[in-house]
Each structure stands twice: as C-alpha cells, then as structure tokens.
C-alpha cells in the first residue's frame, strides 16, 4: 500500500506525518509512510488545503490534523 502525507512543510503537516507513522503500524499496516512537500501534487488532485493524507494516491484526509482515534477511524474506512 502506498501511504503518503503531502504538506507545505508547516507544523500541522509534520504533526500529521508523525501521527500517521505511529497509527498505521498500530493498525497492523507496516508499509512505509512517505512525506512529500510537493504542493503541485495536492493542486493536481484538485485539492486546495494542506496537509493531505493519501492511500494509494487517493486523498482520504484533507486540511486537518485529527486526533489519533479519529485518524484510525478514517484509515479503517478507506482500507
């Protein structure tokens, strides 16, 4: 599975990256979480907020930093 956090490099984006690295293994998913600050990727997806979490290039979380529990709910919904 390709897991990516794309952000503009702001605090919120890095926090989401750290949280994602923590949460995926807890859900038994050991694929690497990649961080990218290529804003063009976000824009080309038609999205205008940052950070974005994508699973297999599909955006699942946009423009916010959820708490751990909420992030798990979102990930479970999409895998």
């Amino acid at each position: 599975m390709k897991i990516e956090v794309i952000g503009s490099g702001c605090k919120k984006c890095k926090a989401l990256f750290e949280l994602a690295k923590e949460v995926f293994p807890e859900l038994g998913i050991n694929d690497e979480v990649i961080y990218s600050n290529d804003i063009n990727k976000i824009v080309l997806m038609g999205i205008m907020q940052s950070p974005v979490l994508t699973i297999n290039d599909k955006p699942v979380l946009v423009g916010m930093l959820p708490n751990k529990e909420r992030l798990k709910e979102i990930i479970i919904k999409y895998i």
Partner: protein
Amino acid sequence: MFYPIQLLADWLTYSIFNITPKTLLADTINFFIFDTIKIFILIIIVIFLISIIRSYLPPEKIRAILSRKNKYVGNILASLLGIITPFCSCSAIPLFLGFVQAGVPLGTTFSFLIASPMINEVALVLLLGLFGWKIALMYIVSGLIISILSGIIIGKMKVENLVEPFVYGNLINGNRNLPSMSGKERINYAKDYTLDILKKVWIYVLIGIGIGAWIHGYLPADFLVQYAGSDKWYVVPLAVLIGIPLYSNAAGVIPLVSALTEKGVSMGTTLAFMMSVTALSLPEFMILKKVMKIKLIIIFVSIVTIGIIFTGYLFNLIL
C-alpha cells in the same frame, strides 16, 4: 440574552469569593468572570456552527462556484465565502495555486485572500461578545467592502505578470476529489475543530480579558481621550502600524482593545486596529512570496492598508 451569566458571575463574586459588592475589586472580578464565561460559550456555539457550514463548503467547492462567476459577482462571493474559511498558513499556497490554475481571476482570488483572515471566526465571536452585534456587523460589512474593492482594484491593474510564471504552468479543470463526509463525520469534524480553537486561544482570551478587566476597573473613564480621541489625526495610522506585528492574536488583542475603547479610544480607531491585526500578517506575506513577486505583495498590502485607514477615519467621523 446574557442575563443568566450575569447572575452566575454575581453569585461567584459575592457569595463564593465573598468580595464586598460595589468595591473596585468586586467590579473587576465580576467583569472578568462575566466576560470569560460569555466568550467561551460564544466560541463554542459560533465556531461549531461555522465548522458545520464549512464542512459543506470547503475551498474546493468554493472554487467551483467562483470559477463560473463574472468579475464583480466573483469579488463579492469570494469575500463572503472568505468569512467561513479560516486562513491557515498551511493552505495559503495550495489555495492560491488552486484558484488561479482553475481560472479564477486574480482579483477574485485576492478578494478571498483578504476576507478570509480579516473576517475570522474568533475575531467575530469576540466582537459580538465584547462590543455587541452592531459593532460586529460594522466590522463584517467594512471588511467585506475592503476585500471586494481591493480585489476589484487589483483585478483592474492587470498584474498577472507579477505572479511567478510557474503558477500558470498547469491549468487544471477544478475536478473535485475530496473524501466524502457522513453527517456524523461532519459533527465530529466540527467538534474537533472547536476544541482545537479553544485549546489554541483560551490562554490569550483569559489574559486579554484579565488585563481588560483591570483596565475597566482601575483606569479612569477618560484616561485615553487626550491621547487617542477621534480628533487626533495620527491615531488611526499609528493603530494600524501597531496592529501589523500582532498578527493571528486577535484572541488576546480584542478583549484588551474593548477595554481601551471604554477609556476613550474612538470606535473608528478600534476597528482599524483590529482589522490591521487580523488582515495584515507578516507570515502570510512571506508565504505568498513563493507564488508572486514582492512588488505584487507590496501593492496588495498597500491597498488593504489604505482601505483600513480610510475605514478608521470614516467611523471616527460618523460615530
């Protein structure tokens, strides 16, 4: 509307803390408790409601609305939609690129970029709670007029050549690709967002109201009239200047300003100061440097600044 809170504040001040009524200390403490409870209740209600609305109108949908509108309607809609969108430095660049690449005119984009931070929800709550709905409305309307007119002026100046060329590199057909949200998820989103804001601002609100309460109780009523009354021409530009470095701290600044207004700072000056705090933010300008030339940032800042100063003088004259 706030009567039960006043009763609670009275009960806490006089019965629980046992402070003798009608003393300076009692007034100050009472004022502090009343304002604090009122503001926190308003923050929870207003921000929760705005978040719910926003979950239906994310920037991507706003773009779809704006790219279909003609120029002037676009400026007006962009400014209105800017109200419900909080300005986050994380999203400034994707927002700008997303608008421009989908064919939203530059002037319309600027209207949005000005309204979004200037008319922000926290500032709105504090204005409503501390100054009343009339002043809050005046703030919104003048903020809207500034962002609409500034956008129209920038649009007329044909400054597309001052945007970094790569911005126009790929033109996209604003197709939306957003994860969908169920009703429960919207409520969760609004709940989380409201809590986030509370966590972020509570300390500033408390400090602001605290100092405000002290000013309210201990400074004489006309203390500032001789320095900051409406007859002093230099006060408005000075207030705007002081406001620039206080960006993103509307939460602490507005309670303070409300107390100063009580002591003789005129309303136009107060409004201009608050607009300067919210709309003119150095970090935002630094970020925008990635997508536009400094000359365009200077044009943008100058137009907004002139608009704010003009608003200050206008309200000093008519209020």
